[in-house]
C-alpha cells in the first residue's frame, strides 16, 4: 500500500487525472449550495443573457440559469457513472468469477449469454429499451446502462479467474476445505483488486458517455437535468448558430474533461500497478 501511494504520487498521468476529476466532483458537491437558484429548470431571468454577476454562466433561451443547470447536471453525470458503471462492474465480476471458477456447462452457458450481448449493438438496444419506458429518471437510465455494459468485463474477469484458478494457492485453499465462495472472494478476488479498480474506472467513463449519447438523441431523463440534456436543449434551440456559447461549452467541456481524466487515471494506474511499465 505504501509502495502504491509512493508510485501513485510520482505518476504525472495519475495526478493530472485525479486533479481534474476531483475538481468536477467538488464542483458537483458544493455547486448547488453556492448557486443563487435552487431549481435548475426554473425560469429566473431574461433569456440568452451572457455570463454576469447574477448568472455566472449566463442564461438559456428560457431564462434558466446555466450554472445551476451545470452543477446539477454534473451531479447526475457522476450519479450515472457511479451507479451505471458500478452495476456493470458488479455484474461483470459476478458472471466472470462464476464462469471462470466453476467452468464446465455453467461456463459455456454464461459465456454464450455474454457473447450474444456483445454482438447486439448496445446503442440500438438502449434506444429500444429507453423508448418503451414511459417514465425515465436518471436512476432508470443508470440501470439500463449497467445492464448492457457488463459483457466485456465479464469476459476479461473470467480469463483472469481462469489463470488464477490454476495457481497452487487455490489448490491449497481447496485442500484446506475452504468453501468455493470463500476461495473466490478471499483468495482469487483480492489478487485482481488493481484490475477491478481499472475496470470500474473504464465502466464509469463508459456509462457517462452512454448516458450523454442517450440524452442527446432525446431518450434522456424525462425529468431533471443532465449534462447530456443541456447539450441536447442547446442544439435544439440553435445555441451554436446564435453564438450562445455559454450554454453548450460548459457541459461539452466538462464531459470531455471528466472522461479524459478517467482515461488518464486508468493509464496512470496501469503504470502504477504494473512494475514493468513503471521502470522507465
Amino acid at each position, binding site marked *: 500500500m505504501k509502495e502504491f501511494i509512493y508510485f501513485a504520487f510520482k505518476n504525472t498521468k495519475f495526478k493530472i487525472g485525479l486533479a481534474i476529476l476531483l475538481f468536477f466532483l467538488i464542483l458537483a458537491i458544493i455547486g448547488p449550495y453556492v448557486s443563487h437558484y435552487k431549481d435548475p429548470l426554473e425560469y429566473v431571468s431574461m433569456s440568452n443573457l451572457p455570463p454576469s454577476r447574477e448568472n455566472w454562466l449566463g442564461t438559456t433561451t428560457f431564462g434558466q440559469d446555466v450554472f445551476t443547470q451545470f452543477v446539477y447536471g454534473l451531479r447526475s453525470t457522476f450519479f450515472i457513472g457511479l451507479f451505471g458503471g458500478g452495476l456493470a462492474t458488479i455484474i461483470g465480476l459476478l458472471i466472470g468469477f462464476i464462469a471462470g471458477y466453476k467452468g464446465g456447462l455453467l461456463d459455456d452457458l454464461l459465456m454464450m449469454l455474454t457473447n450474444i450481448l456483445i454482438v447486439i449493438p448496445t446503442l440500438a438496444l438502449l434506444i429500444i429499451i429507453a423508448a418503451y419506458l414511459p417514465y425515465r429518471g436518471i436512476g432508470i437510465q443508470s440501470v439500463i446502462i449497467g445492464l448492457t455494459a457488463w459483457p466485456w468485463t465479464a469476459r476479461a474477469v473470467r480469463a483472469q479467474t481462469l489463470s488464477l484458478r490454476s*495457481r*497452487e*494457492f487455490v*489448490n*491449497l*485453499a*481447496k*485442500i*484446506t*476445505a*475452504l468453501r468455493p465462495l470463500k476461495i473466490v472472494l478471499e*483468495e482469487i478476488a*483480492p*489478487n485482481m483488486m488493481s484490475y477491478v479498480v481499472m475496470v470500474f474506472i473504464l465502466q464509469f467513463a463508459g456509462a457517462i458517455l452512454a448516458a450523454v449519447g442517450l440524452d442527446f438523441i432525446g431518450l434522456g431523463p424525462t425529468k431533471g437535468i443532465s449534462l447530456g440534456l443541456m447539450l441536447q436543449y442547446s442544439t435544439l434551440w440553435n445555441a451554436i448558430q446564435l453564438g450562445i456559447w455559454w450554454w453548450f461549452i460548459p457541459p461539452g467541456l466538462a464531459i470531455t474533461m471528466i472522461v479524459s481524466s478517467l482515461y488518464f487515471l486508468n493509464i496512470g494506474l496501469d503504470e502504477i500497478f504494473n512494475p514493468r511499465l513503471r521502470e522507465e
Partner: protein
Amino acid sequence: MIKAKDLTKVFNSGLLLSKNIITAVDEVNFEIGRGEILALVGESGSGKSTIGKMMLKLLKPSGGQILLEDKDIFSISNNKEFYSRVQGIFQDPYSSFNPIFKVNRIFKLVRQSFKKEISISEWNDRVEEVLKKVGLNAGDVLNKYIHQLSGGQLQRLLIARALLMDVEVLVADEITSMLDASTRVDVLEALLSLKEIGASILFVTHDLSQAYYISDKIVVLYKGSVVESGSIEKVFSNPMHPYTRMLLDSIPQLDRKWEEDRISVEDFDKSRAAWKEGLCKYIDRCSLADVNCMRPKLKLVEEDHYVACVKI
C-alpha cells in the same frame, strides 16, 4: 493406509467430432502403509502428478478407486473430515502462497477450518513448535510476505502445515524440483520427520537419487502405466524393465561417468508410426522390443518386486 486400485484417468480434448482421448493414468495399483514413503517416479507426461491430484480429490478418476482405509475417498462427502487426514504439497512453493497475504495465513486458515477448538494462543505455540521441527525460526518467517522468503523456507512452511494437522497421508508432488541443492536436503529431512510420526507419503518425483534416498517403495510409470514396482532396494539393485534400467543409467552420478555410447532418444519414426492398440507403450524407445511386443501385465519376479515386460 491408502491404496490405489485400478486407478485410471482419461482426458478428452477436442470437439465432439474430432475426439482426442489421452489415457493419462492407466490402471495403476499401489498401496502405502503407515509410516511408509512411496516414490512415484516417471518423466513429464507419465501421469504421476495426475495421480497426486486424484489422491487429493482435485481431479476425479475415470475408473478405479482410491481407498483410504478401505473407504473410497470420493464417497467421503465431508471435505473437512477428508482433508484433515489427507494433505498435499505442490511443486512450486512460490505459487502455493497467496502473494498478497503474509505467509502465516496458511496456519490461520488451518485452525479456522480444522482446529477451531484450539485457542489462538495455544495454536500459535503449536505453530512455533512445528516450525522448529522443520528447522525454521517462527520470528524469522511468520510475519513475512513470500517475496521475502526463499523457496526452501516456503516449502518447509508447507511441511510444517502438514505436521501441524497430524495428517495420515501426504501427497508431495515434486516438492524439491524448484529448490537449490543446499535447501533441498532440509526439505527431505522435514519429510522424513513426518514419516517418523506415522504419515504415509506419496513422493512424486523425477529424481531417482532423491527417490532412493528417502523412500521405502517405488512405482515407475511410463505413459500412465506401471512398468516396475516394489521395494526400493530391490528395484534399484536389480532393475529389470528396460525403461527403469535406462533411467538409472541416465542419472548423473558423482562418482561414475555416463556411458557415452548408451544414449536413449525417441525414435522418431517408431513413435510417429500409428499407435496400435494392445502393444507395449515403451515399444518406441525400447532396445529389446520387437514389433509384436504385446501390452504386458505386471508380474511378480521376486518377493516385493513386480515388472511389466514380456521379454523377462
